[in-house]
């Protein structure tokens, strides 16, 4: 039973696009307010948690590629069925699809909540959800190339953010960062809390078979570059936040990044964060599209479903769920749960899969030799 993806030649992508996919998928809604959560655990060493979690992410990407390289043209769904057999494999695939759906929903809901809080307090969140979901349908039904195209352009939409962050530097106090490395356990906890923000690179599991065969080797390099870029963005934002807010203040700010943007003032425009939040739509778009695509790959490995039909079913389900999660507390709880699940799926599970895959491959090789 071969699950190899028969992706046609024109659907294959260049390896360097992996860089944009990683950036597009990692930078999403987490960046708006990840500082507070990590600060609670790691205090002024929160930036070390960011460093730590990114080191871990690099290791995970390395392991992911090792696993994927063992099975040439399989994505994670194919690998799971190969390694764990049909029943357990299908079950794990189902879990992965649920994870992708959860991720999709978390991104969407968090974004809508930010829009509702900062820009349009009186617009019904369901209407915003409909608009965004329809955009996603339009994008995803056009196929994989368009989805990757969106992550490509959305990256360039990100580039104007780092220069803006120079402005708050005037108001920072470097002493807030001291003392360094006070509480190792706290830093580790902070790294763990980072998982909601840092996830996204697990999309490699699904994208890998689509990379051009002869360029698959260099894809890993680009994945690491992508991680480095997001690391660069996160660490700058984290450092500026830590230096700008005093401790008790930061604990009370939900969206610290947006509050910092609030400071920036030009002769012709103020309250940059309103523009930023609206512009963020283009930045979460690749997030949503890629997770939907990932879920579709999982479902289509079991049922032969058209992408169009799947997309409509998927967004209908998402739309219905938006009715049940409404308040800030609920969203917070959801984010906490998602962080926990993401930590297991993204940071723990690849190692388990790698071990099982190695065993499976070795055993297969062994039986192949004897017979």
């Amino acid at each position, binding site marked *: 039973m071969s699950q190899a993806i028969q992706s046609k030649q024109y659907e294959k992508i260049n390896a360097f696009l992996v860089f944009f996919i990683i950036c597009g998928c990692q930078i999403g809604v987490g960046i708006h307010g990840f500082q507070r959560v990590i600060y609670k655990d790691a205090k002024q060493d929160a930036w070390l948690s960011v460093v730590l979690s990114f080191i871990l992410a690099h290791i995970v990407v390395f392991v992911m590629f090792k696993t994927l390289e063992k099975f040439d043209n399989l994505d994670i769904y194919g690998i799971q069925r190969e390694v764990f057999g049909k029943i357990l494999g299908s079950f794990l695939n189902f879990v992965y699809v649920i994870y992708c759906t959860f991720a999709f929903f978390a991104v969407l809901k968090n974004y809508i909540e930010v*829009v509702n809080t900062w*820009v*349009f307090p009186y617009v019904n969140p369901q209407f915003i959800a409909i608009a965004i979901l329809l955009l996603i349908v*339009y994008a995803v039904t056009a196929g994989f190339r368009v989805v990757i*195209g969106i992550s490509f352009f959305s990256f360039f939409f990100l580039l104007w953010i780092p220069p803006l962050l120079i402005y708050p530097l005037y108001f920072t106090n470097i002493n807030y960062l001291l003392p360094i490395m006070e509480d190792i356990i706290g830093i580790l906890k902070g790294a763990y809390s980072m998982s909601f923000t840092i996830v996204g690179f697990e999309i490699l599991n699904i994208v890998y078979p689509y990379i051009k065969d002869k360029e698959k080797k260099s894809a890993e390099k680009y994945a690491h570059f992508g991680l480095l870029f997001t690391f660069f963005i996160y660490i700058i934002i984290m450092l500026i936040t830590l230096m700008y807010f005093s401790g008790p203040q930061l604990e009370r700010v939900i969206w610290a990044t947006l509050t910092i943007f609030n400071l920036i003032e030009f002769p*012709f425009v*103020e*309250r940059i964060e309103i523009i930023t939040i*609206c512009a963020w*739509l283009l930045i979460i778009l690749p997030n949503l599209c890629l997770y939907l695509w990932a879920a579709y790959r999982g479902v289509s490995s079991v049922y032969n479903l058209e992408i169009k039909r799947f997309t409509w079913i998927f967004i209908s389900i998402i739309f219905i769920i938006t009715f049940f999660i409404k308040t800030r507390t609920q969203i917070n709880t959801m984010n906490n749960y998602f962080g926990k699940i993401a930590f297991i799926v993204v940071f723990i599970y690849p190692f388990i899969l790698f071990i099982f895959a190695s065993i499976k491959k070795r055993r297969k090789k062994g039986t192949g030799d004897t017979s």
Partner: protein
Amino acid sequence: MFNNKKDKKNEQSTNNQQELQEPTKHYTKSELKQTLDTRTKEEFVNLIKDKVSSPADFIVKNINDEITIIYIENLIEVQSLNDNIISTLQSISEPTPQLIKEKLSLAQVDISNKLDVIIYELIGGAALIHTKENADIVVAKISSYQSRSLSAPENESQVIGTQVGFNENLTTNISLIRRFIKSPNLCNENFEVGEDTVTSISLLYLKGTASEEQVNTIRQRIESLDVSGLIDSAILAELIDDSTKTVFPQMLLTERPDRFCDGLLSGKIGIMMNGSSMGIVTPIAFIEFFHSKEDQNLRWQIGTMLRLLRFSAIIASVFLTPIYVAALTYHYEIISHTLIVPLSESRAIVPFPPILEALFLELIIELLREAGSRLPTKVGQTVGIVGGIVIGTAAVDAGITSNILIIFVALSALASFTTPNYVMANIIRFLRFPIIILAGIWGFLGIMIAVCFLLIHLLRLSSLGAPYLSPLYPLRLKDLPNSLIRLPLSNISRQAVNTRKGDDESTNQENNEKVSE
């Protein structure tokens, strides 16, 4: 939809001789497609007269008992008829078609016994020479061309560069192109399209440079056209587009032979049509609609500056008014305190919400433009003056709009005229309206939804199977020096990657599949 033709002619000869034997268009096939028998003079004349609906300018001329000439008076060159045909025929004593063909001092003489061929040649401006008791008819092509003389292109004018534009005559246009490209590789394939118009279409490309696959696609699309009439190449371009659902054109219409030849040299395919002064260049990328030939004729620094200016103008043109509407309706807190005072002062007496105000003013500008382009040039100036007064001072004095909005609207109108391509300039102006409405509904979020939608839409489009947004996405580094910017010529690759053969990244196959559905 383009696949309904069963047999695909791969080799379409450019030779007229072959074309005669294999006409591409068969009007009322069952009736006309027959071979002539031996007929007497009267029978033949009556037959032909009947088939061409006995026009008033139908002339039958008997040279002697054996030779008869039939032609349509308004279509032929009388000089040529007198000097080359009548005088020669009078000297022939034992006329056979073969002999007449040899004797006539004309370049285009054919012999045919197929009714459809001779009918179409007759109404195309040929004289038919019937000899006694012979089924074969001599077809002497002496059609007269009435065409406008070559003039400078009006819609795509430029300061530096060739000052010649296409005219409506296919022969003249092709000779213009051949003057630019003296290459034996320049292929010219002829098609005839339109049941009633039988319009000649020329498909031009450089063999070995243009992608064979794309040439086949376009050939197939032209051959499977089923229309009664074709008057302009703009209609042809729409008929053979990849997608008709979009507002964006996927083929470039140009009246400049230098632009056309530039396209051919970079591996694109050109289509010329008789009766139209616009050539079609395809495949074309979105960005190329904003290029002017003049960018390349100037120094590269200036060319780059002009292009960047143009692209920022386009962005400003599309988004200035929506930003005004969004900022004043929902996000007044983003307007800095220095700006809010003059803004609110000018808005104070305006009774409408910003969206109505903006739509109203944009509509006036559009009306002015439309009226100006439809009116004769002499009256056109009046429109400018009236418009200037109406939207310049009266609207503000009457308290209908604010001063600042007038600046924005005028600026965005001005910016939209920088687009060198008329078709695209219209679209840029049209795009503004839905975005203004979205901005009126959801402010900046509405604008962003429009931006995302546009981005996805442009990503979905393709021009003859080649991605519409290239060289940006898919990223083609080799084409980047000649895209948003223009680098020195030594950096610009001759062939656009869009048309590269065996380009496994292009969506050719995908598109072919779509076409065959």
